[in-house]
């Protein structure tokens, strides 16, 4: 009853100066909106960067011979790859599985030489794990018709002065450890957002590579996409029990990607906190004005017997109401904005030409998991309540006698 009366009075007090309250609410709305939206943007950028890397090159899980990643020698191939692939495909959490033979080689063109990773792929299954085929800039994907076709990145093409239909010789070791070489013909040139990848990776048909390796059905690497890349470590652990092969999650393969992923959270909350702090100062300022301009009234209330806890609660509640109007509106707006911009994207190419060098796309699609909305909403509520404390303490410290005398 008493609390309810204070609550009602606070609500009415909020609207005694609609302009000021409107400005505060607007600030809370904008703060929440800007905070969440830019967080979504930053998160989208990071997620895009990570998923791009995973989808073009790293994949979610990689299986190798236990010694393979120490020396990358062709002799460390996987035993019984067919049954392994079959088994992996049968799990619920795997979305796509592909087998590759992978070797390190020296690519030589008519003009130049460059060290490359050669991936022998089964085009049908590989295109479900890697999206390189979607980045085809010239020519076509590995065609079965041509003899020894090779797919190269645009950066390698530049370096070795290659074009579609150019010839490329690759030197490498076979499974026995003997030096061998193969002549390939460029059928397509891809251009992913990751220049380092485009420069150092070439794709050939696995059969072609295996023929040169001197062993049929050689598989060095099984690459797997799972339902959610965030769970890769967990899936790795559940698979590890069943085999003595080396299973690595994308985070194991690329620690820098894992670092990026785990730091996104931290960065976002730092960022949000900065916005929240700005908001806090705005609110302290306005609420302080709201308290100081009714010194007499508050003094009168305390004089006639409204105790300090109630006076304090009243001012706190006034801020709380402003927040409770502002935060949900800001959250809704930002949710809609993220939904919409998440569809159409933001084109940063005009002022971010360097992005591609770092494996980033110049189109950004903001995205934010629901958890962030809740947390950021809570952060805003906590921030504004913290901001309310100082003015409320000011109110409760008023000396009624002094307050009333100031007529």
């Amino acid at each position, binding site marked *: *009853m008493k609390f309810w009366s204070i609550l009602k009075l606070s609500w009415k007090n909020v609207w005694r100066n609609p302009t000021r309250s409107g400005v505060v609410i607007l600030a809370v709305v904008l703060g929440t909106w800007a905070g969440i939206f830019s967080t979504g943007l930053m998160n989208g950028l990071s997620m895009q960067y990570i998923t791009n890397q995973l989808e073009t090159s790293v994949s979610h899980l990689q299986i190798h011979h236990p010694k393979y990643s120490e020396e990358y020698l062709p002799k460390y191939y996987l035993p019984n790859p067919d049954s392994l692939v079959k088994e992996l495909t049968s799990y619920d959490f795997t979305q796509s599985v592909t087998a590759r033979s992978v070797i390190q080689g020296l690519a030589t063109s008519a003009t130049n030489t460059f060290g490359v990773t050669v991936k022998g792929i089964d085009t049908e299954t590989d295109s479900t794990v890697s999206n390189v085929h979607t980045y085809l800039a010239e020519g076509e994907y590995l065609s079965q018709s041509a003899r020894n076709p090779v797919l190269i990145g645009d950066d390698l093409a530049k370096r070795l002065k290659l074009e579609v239909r150019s010839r490329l010789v690759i030197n490498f070791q076979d499974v026995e450890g003997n030096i061998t070489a193969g002549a390939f013909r460029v059928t397509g040139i891809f251009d992913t957002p990751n220049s380092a990848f485009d420069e150092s990776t070439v794709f050939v048909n696995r059969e072609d590579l295996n023929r040169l390796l001197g062993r049929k059905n050689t598989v060095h690497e099984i690459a797997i996409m799972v339902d959610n890349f965030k769970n890769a470590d967990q899936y790795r652990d559940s698979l590890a029990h069943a085999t003595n092969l080396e299973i690595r999650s994308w985070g194991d393969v690329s620690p820098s990607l894992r670092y990026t992923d785990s730091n996104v959270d931290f960065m976002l909350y730092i960022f949000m906190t900065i916005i929240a702090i700005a908001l806090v100062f705005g609110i302290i300022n306005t609420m302080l004005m709201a308290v100081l301009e009714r010194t007499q*009234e508050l003094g009168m209330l305390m*004089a006639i017997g409204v105790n*300090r806890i109630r006076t304090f609660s009243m001012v706190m509640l006034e801020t709380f109401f402003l927040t409770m109007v502002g935060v949900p509106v800001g959250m809704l707006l930002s949710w809609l904005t993220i939904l919409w911009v998440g569809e159409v994207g933001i084109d940063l190419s005009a002022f971010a030409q360097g992005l591609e060098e770092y494996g980033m796309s110049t189109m950004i699609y903001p995205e934010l998991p629901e958890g962030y909305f809740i947390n950021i909403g809570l952060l805003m509520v906590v921030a504004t309540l913290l901001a309310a404390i100082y003015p409320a303490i000011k109110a409760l410290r008023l000396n009624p006698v002094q307050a*009333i005398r100031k007529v």
Partner: protein
Amino acid sequence: MSIIKVRDIKKVYNKDQVPVHALNGVDLDINEGEFTAIVGPSGSGKTTLLNVIGGLDEPTEGKVYIHDTDMFSLKERELIDFRLHHIGFVFQAYNLIPVLTAKENIAFILQMQGRPQKECNQRSMELLKMVGLEDKIDKRPSELSGGQQQRVAVARALSSKPDFVLADEPTANLDSASTANLLDMMLRLNEEENITFIFSTHDQRVVDRARRIVTLVDGRVDSDEERISNNEQVPNSRKN
């Protein structure tokens, strides 16, 4: 029976710098049903005395008893509660909460006293009727004249059925017609409901209608006289 006993009250402001002796040993007894005006020149200590009696301002020395409660022996929280339940206040201005209607202003303080909602509604209607504002229940203070606002303030002050009502210059901001109206009403409440009023004033027309007049000079009681009717003045035994 005296409900207020003021005993040798001294109040010094600015003790550390240039001390101001606002009250220099005031003794005063107020009986139930009295209608007392505190008068005196500006700066004589009227407001200070009322604030001390109302438990708003702690005296430097001396004691105030309300019935048998030594008011300044109470803890701050208890004192606020004591004011809420035992003392009615009417100030010169800023009596009402601007965002609440006349009725809500009265009901609010009843709610603070912890009365049930139904009683709050009934009693605030009753009180507004008592001060002749039953047609203004849903008006905000800004929609009321100064005199009407002060009537609401009196009604609010009466809400807790207080031991007495303190009013520091309640008519200072009113024109003469409103002043007369408010005085009529206060006198009627005093006579019909036996409500004890203690008020300060500079207005001779208000002084003329008081039943007891306490004059302060330099923080001391200079004279204390009682009247039998509104016009007759009799010397009082308590005169200093």
